[in-house]
């Protein structure tokens, strides 16, 4: 019982926080599906299948583009969490974000947009320091700034 409900309790906690971003919501969904897929033994089969079905139902009703795009623009994750689907090759991502740009700002994205996005996805050009910056912020959040500097200077 505890193992069944705990992931849901954690998820409720995360999604009801004062600052809950869209990427957190999608990652929470993914994480829940993963956990319940692992619990497929005879005792838990019914519960797990219906929880997954319910999650999939909500997800199917959502505006998926925005959620996916928010995970991608989060530099700590980028496209890493997503599977090997043709939609997540670089050009697919550019297509997705350009569509959203038009939707949000009611204008066509400038030419520099796709170049910058490419640089971001591959951590090159103006984003060449992306990984190091992410590590620094992660470490700062952990309260281990010193350790990160040691790590980076190696």
């Amino acid at each position, binding site marked *: 019982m505890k193992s069944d409900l705990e992931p849901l309790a*954690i998820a409720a906690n995360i999604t009801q926080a004062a600052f809950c971003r869209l990427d957190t919501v999608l990652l929470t969904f993914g994480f829940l599906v993963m956990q319940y897929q692992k619990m497929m033994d005879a005792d838990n089969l019914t519960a797990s299948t219906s929880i997954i079905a319910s999650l999939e139902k909500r997800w199917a009703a959502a505006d998926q583009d925005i959620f996916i795009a928010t995970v991608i623009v989060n*530099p700590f994750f980028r496209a890493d969490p997503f599977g090997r689907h043709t939609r997540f090759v670089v050009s697919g991502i550019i297509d997705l974000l350009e569509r959203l740009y038009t*939707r949000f700002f009611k204008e066509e994205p400038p030419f520099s947009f796709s170049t910058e996005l490419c640089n971001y996805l591959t951590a090159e050009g103006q*984003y060449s320091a992306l990984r190091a910056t992410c590590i620094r912020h992660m470490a700062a959040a952990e309260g281990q700034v010193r350790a990160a500097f040691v790590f980076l200077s190696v």
Partner: protein
Amino acid sequence: MNFQGGPPDPLEVYRDLSFSSEPHSPFHRLAARLLSICANSATCERLFSVFGNTLTKLRNQMGTSTLSSIAELKMHVRNEHQLNSTKIWMKRMFVARSTTIPPNESSILPTLAHPPSPQSPASDETNEENEDLNHARPVGSSFRDLVSTHGSVPIEDDEPCVHSQEGKLTLSQLFNFGNDHWIKSYEKHTRKSFDEELALYDLLNEDAATGNGMEVDVDETTAEILLG
């Protein structure tokens, strides 16, 4: 503001990687827009409950303008406390369990029941469009503007927009559960906030068990400060 131990803020990474003197690049603009969307209505609901706590049985003659001014003031006081001394007096209250009543917001507010209200004279003009907004009028024109702007947003939302042509993916198709990098970094922070909450409950239970605990409305920010 990022509390120590909280998840890192993605927008800070963008800030670090851009030139401070130049305007944001188009991609940075889109990222900022996407990452600042709040996915729940918890903050609004908390605001409503602030209203509920202010308009009590003993203070039920209050007008809307006073009520909203008090709520606004309450938020400012709360913010200032969070920035300055919350940690100290929260620790004092819970850890040392002093018997004196701490200077919390509710004890300050009644003395400031008449803050300057930015109220504009309510006009008598009625028009069909905002007929159902009339009850919100005395609060002030800025609030009314806010309401009407938000009222028109759903209509804009209904306008056809370009969706992905390739159809939708299911969650199990979408994610790569074999890559444990994201899973680990996600798990670390979620687990942490859950454990913190459990720790807070333990602390409150302990307080109740000793008999001299007082009822305090503790939200998660307070909990973070307390346990941080």
